[in-house]
């Protein structure tokens, strides 16, 4: 299978505002490939470098060294983002717009025709179950509804690669289930999904492969069946072992 997302030897350093703290290394020579048609779960504790990886892949942050590409195009080129959809964590969309207006705005950025945009908006609002609230301003939406509106904006261009940063963060069990169903549906349609999450059960359900990052280093990449050994009761145990939680607590 062809790799459509590629990171080669990525290193990201942030200069701390306080001189005494020096430089913080967010990613240390990260190598990663995500193949077409797979659902890839990107796991790691808070501050491990998951969001930084996504920020580099989307061109928000310039890496200190290394390179990243989407569909073989350097991520610094805006055209690399033509075939991707992105859902950031905890975003508060334009409160004064309705979901329909929000999707129309994003459709214009992809240069969709009026007819195509109308069709896509209807389809997506149905998919994320926001048809009944399509004309209501987003400020009246619940958190789950806002997250679903966010998911709809990520899908407006019918992307081949979907990048989701903790898509179920802060959602109730029903909301999480709905997002999971949507990911599974996209998987069924042959889309590539790259998502980060803390919900290991959810990752186990939907992912083909996972990567575990800790302190800026990619510790392991592979199918869940390989990462979860017979001695592990669940993926959580494997995850804790990989990030060295037991060793740390013992010492």
């Amino acid at each position, binding site marked *: 299978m062809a790799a459509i997302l590629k990171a080669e030897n990525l290193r990201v350093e942030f200069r701390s505002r306080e001189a005494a703290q020096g430089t913080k290394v967010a990613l240390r020579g990260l190598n990663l490939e995500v193949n077409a048609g797979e659902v890839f779960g990107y796991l790691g504790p808070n501050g491990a470098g998951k*969001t*930084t990886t996504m*920020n580099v892949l*989307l*061109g*928000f*942050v*310039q890496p200190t060294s290394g390179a990243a590409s989407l569909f073989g195009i350097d991520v610094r080129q*805006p*055209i690399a*983002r*033509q075939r*991707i*959809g*992105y*859902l*950031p*964590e*905890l*975003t*508060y*969309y*334009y409160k*004064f*717009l309705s979901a329909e*207006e929000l999707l129309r*705005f*994003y459709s*214009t*950025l*992809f*240069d969709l025709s009026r007819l195509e945009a109308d069709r896509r908006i209807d389809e997506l609002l149905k998919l994320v179950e926001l048809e009944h609230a399509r004309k209501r301003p987003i400020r009246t939406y619940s958190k789950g509804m806002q997250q679903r509106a*966010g998911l709809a*904006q*990520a899908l407006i*261009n019918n992307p081949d690669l979907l*990048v989701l940063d903790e898509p179920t963060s802060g959602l109730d069990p029903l909301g999480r289930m709905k997002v999971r169903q949507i990911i599974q549906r996209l998987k069924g349609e042959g889309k590539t999904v790259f998502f980060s999450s803390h919900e290991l059960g959810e990752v186990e359900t939907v992912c083909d492969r996972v990567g575990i990052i800790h302190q800026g280093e990619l510790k392991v990449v592979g199918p869940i069946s390989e990462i979860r050994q017979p001695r592990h009761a669940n993926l959580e145990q494997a995850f804790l072992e990989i990030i060295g939680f037991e060793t740390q607590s013992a010492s």
Partner: protein
Amino acid sequence: MKTILAVAGVVIKELYRRKDFYVLFIVTMLICLIMASVRIFNDDKIVRYLKEMCLLLVWISSLVIAITTTARQIPAERENRTLLPLLAKPVTRTQLLLGKFLGCWLACGIALVCFYLFFGALAASREHHWPLLNYFQAASLHWFMLGIVIAMALLGSLVFAAPSSNSTICFVVVGGILLLGRHLDSVALTLPEPVRSAFLIVYYSIPHLEFFDVRDLIIHDWPLIHWGYYGLALIYGIGYMVVFLTGASLVFRRQSVN
């Protein structure tokens, strides 16, 4: 261009769906209406002073709208994290900035049209004549002045993190230029070197916003500005907008968005 217009459309929608704009608009209108309805000392010439005060109020209101609207654009996108899905689309940062600039400038243009129409109707009701071309020159130069202020505030919003500090600095700079800018060269001549040169450098580098203040065309019914000079003023305004927007683009391109 479609991308820039789409971003501008959202800015315009935001401004006209916010209550603070209407509050400012109504307060300005009410004050103008009250001033226009009073008869002081039964003096017909007093209407000129009233026009001057009303136009000053329109100028202040338009500056408040322009600066406060522009100063919050990029910081609000960062705070609400809407900058991330926006830049994850095939949109360049320069396109985003141009869209924000155009949206703010057009929104201020619409506000100016409302202000001047109301003011014109009010003045015409007292004076029974409406010099349309004078209004056109005064309003369009006013709009171009706001364009420079908006471009400057946009650059400020990328340099200063808090919209409030950016707004305050913009108000001080704009107020300083409007009130003192024209006198800097004469002050410089009274000073010793090297302060004189420093003052002259400032004088020749700041945008002279007072060039765009032609309220007297309306207040005193002065003859029209020669169209050649009018055109030069517009080019001068566009020049400064380009300078500030280029600066903003260069700053934004180097910034991390996270």
